[in-house]
């Protein structure tokens, strides 16, 4: 979804007096003060609202937005559209597939970091090795320094989401993964621990972009 589909200028009703994308989809009169009108224009907004309606429902979406301060609603709509479109594309995993892929990437990078840090520690602890030296040329810093990440920048996240990276994963039956969360409110850290457990237990076939110099 691009922010071009939003219509922040209007406070009610669609652009040019017509219904907003949501009311157009719902085939109802777009009243002044329509909660959706600032965020769903009558063009692309209709398609986005269709996904939001299919996944969350108009009533739930409306309640969600009403509970959020007005200055945060645009972000909420963008993220709701992202999740809805991801769920429409992948009815089983939705955007959660992307989360687990990224979580596994973090784990892989941390493992590699631990390895190279251990290697660095050996260089720093031990004296120079005895002759003869290894017959290899000195590497330039440019060759061994990992290139900058080509991951999607956060600012472009909404335009480049790809939650389908686990298509090739094995479909194993899941036991109740979320039982540890019964007792307390989940915080961000618990969600990440949960994601890590999920991907290690149920997504063995997930493929990730290998880190390293490009």
């Amino acid at each position, binding site marked *: 979804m691009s922010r071009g589909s939003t219509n922040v200028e209007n406070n009610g009703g669609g652009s040019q007096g017509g219904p907003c994308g949501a009311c157009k989809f719902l085939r109802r009169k777009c009243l002044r003060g329509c909660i959706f009108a600032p965020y769903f224009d009558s063009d692309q907004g209709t398609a986005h609202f269709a996904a939001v309606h299919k996944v969350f429902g108009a009533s739930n979406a409306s309640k969600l937005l009403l509970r959020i301060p007005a200055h945060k609603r645009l972000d909420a709509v963008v993220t709701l559209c992202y999740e809805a479109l991801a*769920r429409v594309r992948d009815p*089983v995993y939705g955007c*959660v597939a992307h989360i687990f892929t990224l979580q596994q990437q973090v784990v892989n990078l941390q493992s590699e970091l631990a390895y190279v840090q251990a290697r660095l520690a050996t260089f720093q602890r031990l004296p120079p*090795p005895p002759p003869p030296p290894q017959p290899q040329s000195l590497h330039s810093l440019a060759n061994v320094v990992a290139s900058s990440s080509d991951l999607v920048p956060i600012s472009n996240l909404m335009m480049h989401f790809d939650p389908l990276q686990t298509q090739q994963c094995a479909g194993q039956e899941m036991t109740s993964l*979320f039982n540890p969360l019964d007792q307390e409110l989940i915080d961000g850290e618990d969600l*990440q621990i949960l994601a890590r457990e999920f991907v290690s237990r149920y997504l063995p076939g997930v493929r990730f972009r290998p880190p390293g110099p490009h």
Partner: protein
Amino acid sequence: MISGRCAACRYLRRRCPSDCIFAPYFPPNNPQRFAAVHRIFGASNVGRMLQQLPPDLRAQAADTLYYEAECRVEDPVYGCVGVISRLHEQIDEAECELAKTRADIVINSDIGQQAQVQQLHDEVEDN
């Protein structure tokens, strides 16, 4: 049987039929699970989404719906996108640290090799 109702039917205060779509994935000992998905997605949407999937994929779908719902309850504005953003930040930090450490390895290996060259040079001079 009233005592055998799943969490969804208990929440919705209705009889739990033998073919209840929710029962396998929303056990009565975890009422919070259905409460979260109902709050965010709505019971009818969840039921419809599960019905449209093959039975062998419904458990995974129910789990990921719960995960998304919990993310949204935790962070009503950003939901799962907040988690994705934080993970991207972690990845960026880890890659940066990795690059620095690799550079340090190169520097240290250069220092080691230069020391060897100097040592050989000294031996040649002594001889």
